[in-house]
């Protein structure tokens, strides 16, 4: 099996996996970073969202080859103690029900606000439309993104 060097949450990691192994399972099973969730495996639910060079990407649909030399951030690395404005907004609004999809939601929202710090309502909805929340906490997700945008000003 090939050895890959990847950079996750600022640390260089070396992993031996077959070339088809998705980043998601490397994070979860090899690096013990289980905050990134498995939902569908085909990039349609957003539970596995991480940042690759600051862009929100579906880790279930990326191989290590595709992230060579790039910087990966997972929910565990978004902030040290959960103090990122998006995490704080999630807490303030008390978004989660079951909580399973929320790391993916937070990663999508934080990358989006980085690129668009003052979004309109439609822009927020478009940005978050790809992330499924089966408990349907969508209205709180919307309010939390809105609040985070205010707090990031």
């Amino acid at each position, binding site marked *: *099996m090939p050895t890959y060097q990847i950079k996750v949450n600022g640390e260089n990691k070396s992993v031996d996996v077959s070339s088809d192994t998705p980043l998601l399972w490397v994070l979860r099973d090899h690096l013990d970073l289980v905050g990134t*969730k498995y939902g569908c495996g085909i990039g349609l639910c957003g539970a596995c969202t991480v940042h690759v060079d600051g862009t929100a990407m579906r880790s279930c649909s990326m191989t290590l080859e595709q992230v060579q030399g790039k910087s990966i951030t997972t929910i565990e690395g978004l902030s040290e103690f959960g103090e990122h404005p998006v995490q704080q907004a999630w807490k303030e609004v008390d978004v989660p029900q079951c909580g399973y999809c929320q790391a993916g939601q937070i990663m999508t929202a934080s990358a989006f606000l980085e690129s668009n710090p003052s979004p309109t309502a439609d822009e927020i909805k478009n940005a978050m439309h790809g992330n499924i929340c089966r408990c349907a906490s969508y209205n709180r997700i919307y309010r939390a993104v809105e609040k985070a945008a205010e707090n990031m000003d």
Partner: protein
Amino acid sequence: METNNTMAFSRRAFMRTTGLAGGGMLIGFNLFQACKPQVKLEPPVDLSTLDYKDFNAFIKIAENGVVTIFSPNPEIGQGVKTSMPMIIAEELDVAWKNVHVVQGKLDTENFDRQVAGGSQSLRHGWDALRQTGATAKQMLVNAAAARWGVEASECTVSEGVITSPTGETLGYGDVVTEAAQLEVPEKVTLKKPSEYKIIGKDAQNVDIDEIITGKPLFGLDYKADGMVYAAVVRPPAFGQQLTTFDATKAKGMPGVLDVVTIGEKARKLIEAQPNIAGILSDSDKVVVIAETTWQAFKAKEAIEAEWEDDVRMESTEDHDAELNALLDGKEFNTMREDGNVDKAFAEADQVLERTYEAPFLPHNCMEPMNFYAHITDDKVHLVGPIQTPAWKAGAVSAMLDRKPEEIELEMTRQGGGFGRRLYGDFVLEAAEIADKIRKPVKVVYTREDDMNDGIYRMALKYRIKAGIKDGSVTAYHLKEAAVNSNMYGLIPNFFPAGAIENYKVDAAAYKSNITTGAWRAPYTNFLAYAEQSFFDELAELMEVDKVQMRIDLLKKVDADADERIQYSPERMIKVIETAVEKSGWGNAPSNVYQGFVNYYCHNTHVAEVADVKIEDGLPVVKKVTCVVDCGIVVNPLGALNQIEGGVLDGVGHSMYGDFGFENGKPTATNYDRYRLIRMKEAPVVETYFIENEIAPTGLGEPTLPPAGGAIANAFKAATGNRLYQQPFSKFPELLKPKEKEIIG
């Protein structure tokens, strides 16, 4: 049930207290029934060795005053891990910020209702939780009073600090060791709702910090030393049996440790407990054991298996025909009958009959099914997300011939339940695999497994017929035809039972190979839409106001005269009138079309009004006004989340939820072909609570059923088309507004 603050309890029967080895006080209690008489807690108890066999919940008060509550019920997103401890903390009279909540383990031996289901956790726990908190508080006060040499009744308490008549103070931690030695008081006083400081105030999810930082909380996150992963090849179609398989290729793949079969133990269990066949295939299954999840998933795809299908391989058309035949036939189980509907129909001026149809639905918990098992000669260790831990531990004990006390089951936080995790077929699989390989192992479903090996909401149909005589509804006949099983016995006593003189509920089922079961708000998740659509049509036929017709029916109900009636007509009328006021019913702008529904299920009364606008030629649900009477609202912040989620889940599945079969195989396997509601489709939800001091009821389910009916009724107003089948998005022609007829 009014909240009662003087209710006498036999505290000795459900509570024991003792000192802790490290100092402090432990109170063991049972939420749902009396403890067995032999249950004892002999001091000093060492918490680390406590096996949780005797009680299903504990409070620990440490010498530093910190309170730890071990919350017994499974947390599936419904919020009980927050709300149940809040009730204890209220009566214990401590600051919520000083309370630490831990998920309790399963007690397989003594107790039954350690379950997440039916929106019943709060309703059943309300009295016991309050009694427990109040009893502990009284013991602490008694200890302080004894030290001061004063009467306990002269002392006051606030937020864990006891004050003597002369102004001296002692914290709970100061007296906890003495308190643990005292007799459990026979009589305690509960707070009046007006005295509540925690109940009724917003409390954040107790796991919020862990959730937003991605800490391991869920079953899929659980790891143990030496743990391996299992992926299971199950019959691709319902009813199939494994004949042969070739694992040569799979065995040569990276990380693959073994390929085994299971099924023998499952069949033995099915033989002993035939009902298990309703949730578990009796076919052999091929199991790939690998070092990582991905390796197990990949190698599973490489298994070449042959299946025989000598039973009927069912398709959606078959279900449709079978259910129609049932509705057209005469073989029904009559679940309630008042008066004589046939006679009333014969005498009626007008008769309306309509049929409503719904497909199967998968649960689609975001966290796919999974479970950990490790089996040794001494112990069966099970860990994961399960709504019915006691039932499953019992089934594993029977399946593997292991003593109940050898089984330890730990519940993780659960990435959704919706009824799917009631069944625990995956627990049985994990146990059979672990018993065979004798290694710590976690079974993980792929999303495709999760969607294709479901225990689905059954396809079902309702045919409703009403007779009108002299301007009144005189007869009502509801027929249910469903795959595998029919509505539970309380439902025929929901509204409009009691409101119509001649009333009958009939049910019939078609037995299928496809496994079906409870799905959030079983039966009512579709029945509410059918009945409430029908009421609207009935009002149109009678040319009366839709809401007034419902109120008039409710006013005819004498719930005191018929103890079978489940709902309160007065509470229902109150939610209806509040919904009319808050939604602006009847006064909406001309481009807003509204649909009205009132419903009772899971002990909660709800009214919903959907606001629909036409955008780009199609109706769009913009807002749902939701009025809820769930009695005392324990945690408004959590309650609002449940209510909004329930409404959106109801909107989403009635709009998009479509799931069928072709020769026993599901027609969708993942989100490319199965649509769930997403952000842009989510309407605003405006919630109003009816304020009262009635004991609380649960909110995990009751706001879902009315939502489908509310939007169907609003769509009718917007487009002129009545929708008789779900999901609505499957009928685009009916979603287009009817052409206005132009005369002259």
